[in-house]
C-alpha cells in the first residue's frame, strides 16, 4: 500500500476507504473486459476504438 509520498490534498479517510472498495468491484469488470478483448483479438475480431487513443478526440460529450 502506497502512503508515501503523502498527498498535498487531503483525500479524506472516508473517501479514501470507500473508493478502494468501490474501485475493487469496478476493477473486476475492467479485468473481464480486458480478457474478453484479448479473446476477441485472438478470434480476429477488431476491438472498438478507444477515445483516449485518438489524439483528435476531445471531451465534448455533454448533450
Amino acid at each position: 500500500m502506497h502512503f508515501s509520498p503523502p498527498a498535498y490534498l487531503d483525500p479524506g479517510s472516508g473517501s479514501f476507504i470507500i473508493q478502494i472498495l468501490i474501485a475493487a468491484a469496478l476493477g473486476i469488470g475492467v479485468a473481464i473486459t480486458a480478457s474478453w478483448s484479448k479473446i476477441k483479438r485472438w478470434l480476429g475480431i477488431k476491438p472498438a476504438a478507444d477515445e483516449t487513443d485518438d489524439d483528435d478526440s476531445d471531451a465534448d460529450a455533454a448533450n
Partner: protein
Amino acid sequence: MPRTSDSLPASFRDPGGFLFSRGGILYRQVNRVGADDYTRFMESGLYEKLVKAGLLIPHAEVDETPADAARAFKVIRPERVPFISYPYEWSFSQLKDAALATLSIQKRALKLGMSLKDASAYNIQFLHGKPALIDTLSFEIYREGKPWDAYRQFCQHFLAPLALMSRVDVRLGHLLRVYVDGIPLDLAGRLLPSATKLNFGLLTHLHIHASAQTRYADADVKSISPKGGMSRNAFIGLIDSLEKTVRKLTWKPAGTEWGNYYEITNYTDTGFAHKKEIISDWLKKIAPKSVWDLGANNGEFSRLASAAGIPTVAWDIDPSAVEQNYLRIKSEKEQNLLPLILDLTNPSPALGWANEERDSLGQRGPVDAVFALALIHHLAVSNNVPLSMLADFFAGFCRWLVVEWVPKSDSQVQKLLRTRRDIFETYTREGFESAFATRFHIRESVDVKESERRMYLLERKE
C-alpha cells in the same frame, strides 16, 4: 509555502510549484520537490498528447529568474488564458464538459504512467471555446496500489453540483459560490431525490461516499485499508464509472426567462438589422481589444464582436440562455466567445482564502468595451438602481460603453411597470443622458429604425 512578493494569491496549496507574475507576464515556478513528477510528465509524451488534444494549456520553459530561487527547479511560461472564469459562472454543459475533460486527462495520464493529483474545477478554463487544464503541475508519477487522492475533490467539485443541477434544480449550481471547495457530499445527498439511489454511479460515488465520510471520519486509513491498495484495473474502473455517471446526467433548458426573447421582442426585422449594423459600425470605429456583453442573452449581439476576432464574454443571469449560447459555440466551434452566468445585481465577489483566491467581477476587468443592450431598464426599473449609480458602475471597468436606451413608453418597460407604482421620474432620455454625462462623453447616438429605442456610443471621461 513562503509567499514571494510577486507570487499570485490563488496558487499556494501545491508544494510542487506556484504561479507568479513579472512585468505583466505570467510564470509558473516548478519547485525541486516537484522536479521528478514534472520531468516524467514532460518525458512520458503526456504533455504533448494533451496539448495536441486541446486538453492542456501549452507552456514554454524559460530562462527567467525564479521567484523563490532556494526551492526552484525550473520556470515555465504558460499560454495566457484570455479570461479566467469560475465554476459558479458556468452553465450545466460547461461544468459537465469540464468534468469530462478532467476524466479524459486522467485516462490518458494513466496510460502513460502518470496520474492527476488534484481534480479541482478551478484548474479548468475555457480556451478557444473548449475546457482545458491550466495547471501543468497537477500530475504525479502513478504508483500501482495508490488510490486516487483527488476522488473526493472530483465528487465535490463536479459530480455533486452536476447531479443537483440535473436532478433537482439547475440553480443549485450557485452553491459552488458558497462552497469554494465543492459541495459537501452529505448536503448533496440530502437534497437529491431518493430515486437517485437507483442510479449506480450516484448511489456509490455520492450517497455511499457521503455515508463513508461520516462513518470513517476519524478512522486510521492505514489500519483498515485493504493490503494491496487499489489495483490499476480498479483505478481504471473507478474513472470509467465516474465518466459514465457524469455522461448520464443531462439538463435541457426549458421555461427560460429569456428563452424565446428574440421572438417576443418588439423589434421589426428592419429595426433588428439596423441595431446590428450600428453595433458593427461602432466596433470598427473603436476596435476594442476585449468586450463584455452584459445581459447578453444567447449571445446574438456578442457574436458581432467575437466573429470579428475580439475576445468576448457574454454574461447573462439566465442559465438557459448561457447554456444555449455555449451549445451553439460548441456545435459551431466558435473561438472567441465565452458565455457565463452573472446576476448583475449581485455580481461574483472575491472569494476564498483572504478573499484573494477568486477574483470579483470588477477585479477581472478592466475591459475595453461593454455592451449594455436593453439592459439599463432592468437595473433601473426592476432593481431601483439610480441612473447616476449605473454610470459610476460602468465607468469603473470600461472605456467604451454601447447602450441601447429603452424608453418608458416601450412595451418591455411597460411590462416591468405593470404591477408596480411608477417611481421613476428621472427615467427619461434626458435623465439618462445627463446622468451618464457625468462619467462619459456621448460620442454618437442613433435612433433605431422602426423603433422607439436609441443607441449610444459613450466614452469614459478621463
